[in-house]
């Protein structure tokens, strides 16, 4: 059994890499269609809604002739299909149109705020993983019943924590009363890395809280499952150090469902920036989305939707390919 398994493992790993590559390839091919479909749905929705960008530029009481001329300028007088076709054609060449309000290109106006949102989500991810380790892995590793119970309660509270309230609590205590962290604003990573981090601590913590609770529960559950399996018991009986049993072998095998949960939360984390950026006055993608909705700046809204979707699709791909790393057998 043991003698054969090495060769079998290699074969499995090869088959796994192959199957995964094919599945990933299919997903990559689907991604542009998914993006085009999302754009079409937004197009149709915007079309169904009363009023358009022309009326919001000219104002409700605007001169009808002025509205008509703006409409012609923006090609809004053309039928839905031709506008959508034009958008897809341009998008394929990397041109997402021009903002109706700022007259900047959508790619540059969304691109200029994207680093702030990406930083916020990245810091949020790191915080979520750290918190999940403390609340989900440490209690199992330390075999402490009271710590485990406390951590379980804290995880449940984290899942139920309304982000708006958490943000205000953090601001009123750590920023206003104790002045440990800045209450608002954003500093670019390249401008000043330390200030970048300081400004992202409170918003990052807010983004991290709910996913941290879910991850902690998931990692605790799957870790306990793994520690109950025969091979893990065998390791424990043979006297492998607990650190090796839990942190090395256990965590690697428990990682699969955990990474899946993490991948499923990325979209929600990106979405939550819509509200969290407003609270912490971060000029990011979410903040731009809210402003553009107010001015019915359809090209910008569309650009943000497409970019947000792209982030989710890419992170789904990363999750899928990491499954092959954690479990070569998963490819079948």
């Amino acid at each position, binding site marked *: 059994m043991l003698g054969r398994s090495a060769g079998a493992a290699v074969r499995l790993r090869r088959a796994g890499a192959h199957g995964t590559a094919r599945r990933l390839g299919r997903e990559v091919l689907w991604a542009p269609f998914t993006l085009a479909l999302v754009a079409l749905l937004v197009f149709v929705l915007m079309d*169904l809604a009363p009023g358009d960008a022309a009326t919001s530029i000219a104002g409700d009481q605007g001169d009808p002739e002025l509205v008509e001329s703006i409409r012609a300028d923006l090609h809004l007088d053309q039928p839905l299909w031709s506008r959508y076709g034009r958008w897809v054609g341009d998008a394929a060449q990397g041109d997402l149109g021009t903002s109706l309000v700022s007259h900047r290109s959508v790619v540059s106006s969304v691109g200029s705020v994207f680093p702030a949102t990406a930083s916020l989500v990245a810091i949020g991810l790191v915080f979520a993983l750290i918190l999940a380790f403390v609340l989900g892995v440490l209690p199992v590793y330390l075999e402490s019943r009271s710590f485990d119970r406390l951590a379980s309660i804290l995880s449940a*509270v984290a899942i*139920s924590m309304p982000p708006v309230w958490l943000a205000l*609590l953090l601001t009123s205590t750590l920023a206003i009363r104790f002045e440990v962290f800045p209450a608002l604003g954003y500093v670019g990573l390249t401008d000043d890395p330390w200030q970048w981090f300081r400004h992202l601590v409170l918003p990052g913590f807010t983004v991290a809280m709910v996913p941290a609770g879910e991850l902690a529960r998931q990692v605790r559950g799957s870790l*306990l499952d793994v520690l*109950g399996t025969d091979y893990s018991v065998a390791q424990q009986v043979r006297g492998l150090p607990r650190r090796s049993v839990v942190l090395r072998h256990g965590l690697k095998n428990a990682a699969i469902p955990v990474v899946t949960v993490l991948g499923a939360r990325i979209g929600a984390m990106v979405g939550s920036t819509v509200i969290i950026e407003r609270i912490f006055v971060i000029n990011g993608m979410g903040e731009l989305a809210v402003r553009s909705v107010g001015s019915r700046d359809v090209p910008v809204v569309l650009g943000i939707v497409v970019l947000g979707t792209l982030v989710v699709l890419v992170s789904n791909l990363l999750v899928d390919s990491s499954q092959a790393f954690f479990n070569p057998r998963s490819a079948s």
Partner: protein
Amino acid sequence: MTGLVPDDLAARPATADLSATDPPSSDPPAAPAGRGHRLLGGLRTLLRRPVLAVAVLVLLVVVVVGLFAPLLAPYPPDISDYSRVGRSPGGPNLLGTDAVGRDVLSRLMFGARTSLFAAVETVLVSVSLGAVLGILAGYLGGWVDAVLDRINSALMSVPPLILAIALLAALGKGLVKAMLAIGLVYATRIFRVARASAKEIRALTYIDAAEVIGAGPWRIAFRHVLPNAISPILVLVVLTFAAAIVAEAGLTYIGLGVPPPTASWGSMLHDASERMELTHLLYAPGIALLVTISALTVVGDALRDAYGRPGGTSDA
């Protein structure tokens, strides 16, 4: 057990958290008993699990307060009284007054009403759309399923709040529209679960039997498939209910939900953010939100454990 893993840790079900003191066997098996038995079983479960009982009680209180806010509230919620601005809790205003002299307790009660309305609207929209289309897609299969599933997974890959914002760009502002948008977002999650259950149930023999008898596809989908797909949908409904309350607070906070001066927990948080020195303004709506969401989480977990659906991915 393993010997090295303490039994109390190893014996616990992966999803049980707050109810961790119960052995996993304490959930009554979902026996196909009569209605009365099931109710009694439910009550027994409640008595055996104090945390769950408290959660159900909390939700009952929120519902009753929300429904009867006009009768229960000691003061009108929207009327400013500049003779009692920014009072701390205690005295005639039990939870104090806000920056323009409105009674915080009364606003909290009317805020429960807003949350309740928001959550019910979201659930109605998401279930009527997601469950109906999901069951149709899963049961019919073929190109209907392929098209609907492709559209649904495209929508699911849009970050939820960004999708809601895009929908609001089309719909406009206001609570009803905001929650319509949130309902559409969560319809995609319900669609996925309903479709999966319908696919599973469709393969069972009694569906074949119904087809042989000559029942039409609509009848089979909604008389035979739907009732059996209810449990996983119900778990999701509880999570959607919680997510809707959080979303209402968030959208109102950024000015896309309830317009002022209407009371909502989100608008109360917004008022509090403008007067950070009046801390009681921050704690009242925040604790109300946290307690309500926690209660819904506990109930959702209990339902999930009872139905044995694995995993904790609500991705709400």
